[in-house]
């Protein structure tokens, strides 16, 4: 029987859909940011990627079972450290800018902009949601966060199509971060462990 966590791809799919109808649902996506970080900080490594990541499962389903992936090898530079950490740095910078623009709405400098930005450049008007029930900054963060989630989903879909289904996992900023945290936490163990293949022979 399938376990509950094998259905988390539905969470990802429903999340993206809900955000389309009401942008405020974007806030739920914070779970996908906080959970993996907490799990790696308490020493669970990258268990989130393998067991709980709905997006990974969704790509696996689309690219694997629905055969939407060409299953080619990813170019070597994408899995290099400089690209992965570079993408993480870029991603975090864009995230910080987004948080700052939320702050500018919070302190009244700017007005709420009902726009979803795709791939950090393409601005889509997204004004069919009534956001007057919440403070403008709460809505502004939702627009920004949904932009982040939509952009990364699209990048993931593109690489899924051209390469292997879960190619997104190679340069996923959350994955790079949780691996980095695990490396810092267990660097002594890595030294002791040495080459895994040697240990078994």
């Amino acid at each position: 029987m399938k376990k509950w966590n094998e259905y988390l791809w539905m969470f990802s799919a429903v999340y993206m859909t809900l955000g389309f109808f009401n942008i405020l649902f974007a806030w739920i996506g914070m779970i996908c940011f906080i959970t993996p970080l907490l799990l790696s900080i308490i020493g669970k490594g990258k268990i989130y990627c393998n067991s709980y990541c709905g997006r990974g499962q969704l790509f696996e389903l689309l690219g694997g079972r629905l055969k939407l992936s060409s299953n080619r090898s990813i170019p070597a530079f994408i899995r290099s450290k400089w690209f992965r950490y570079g993408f993480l740095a870029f991603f975090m910078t864009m995230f910080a800018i987004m948080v700052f623009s939320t702050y500018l709405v919070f302190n009244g400098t700017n007005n709420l902009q009902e726009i979803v930005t795709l791939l950090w450049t393409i601005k889509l008007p997204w004004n069919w949601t009534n956001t007057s029930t919440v403070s403008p900054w709460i809505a502004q963060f939702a627009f920004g966060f949904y932009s982040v989630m939509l952009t990364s989903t699209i990048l993931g879909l593109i690489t899924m199509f051209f390469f292997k289904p879960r190619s997104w996992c190679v340069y996923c900023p959350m994955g790079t971060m949780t691996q980095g945290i695990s490396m810092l936490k267990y660097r002594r163990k890595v030294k002791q462990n040495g080459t895994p293949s040697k240990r078994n022979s």
Partner: protein
Amino acid sequence: MKKAIVNKNECVACGVCEKVCPRQAITIFHGIYADVNEDLCIGCKKCEKACPASVIQVVQKEVAS
């Protein structure tokens, strides 16, 4: 015997190989890299095919006597 070899330095530790391995021969070492237990590995290449980073290779290894 054929065995899976992981390029640890470029492994992203996503755990896809751990999931597809029919013998549970792969574990993710503290969220850092995939660790193959060569006693359990049967060289089926499932992990090699699934690895999104293409850092697993199944190679011929000499049998330890």
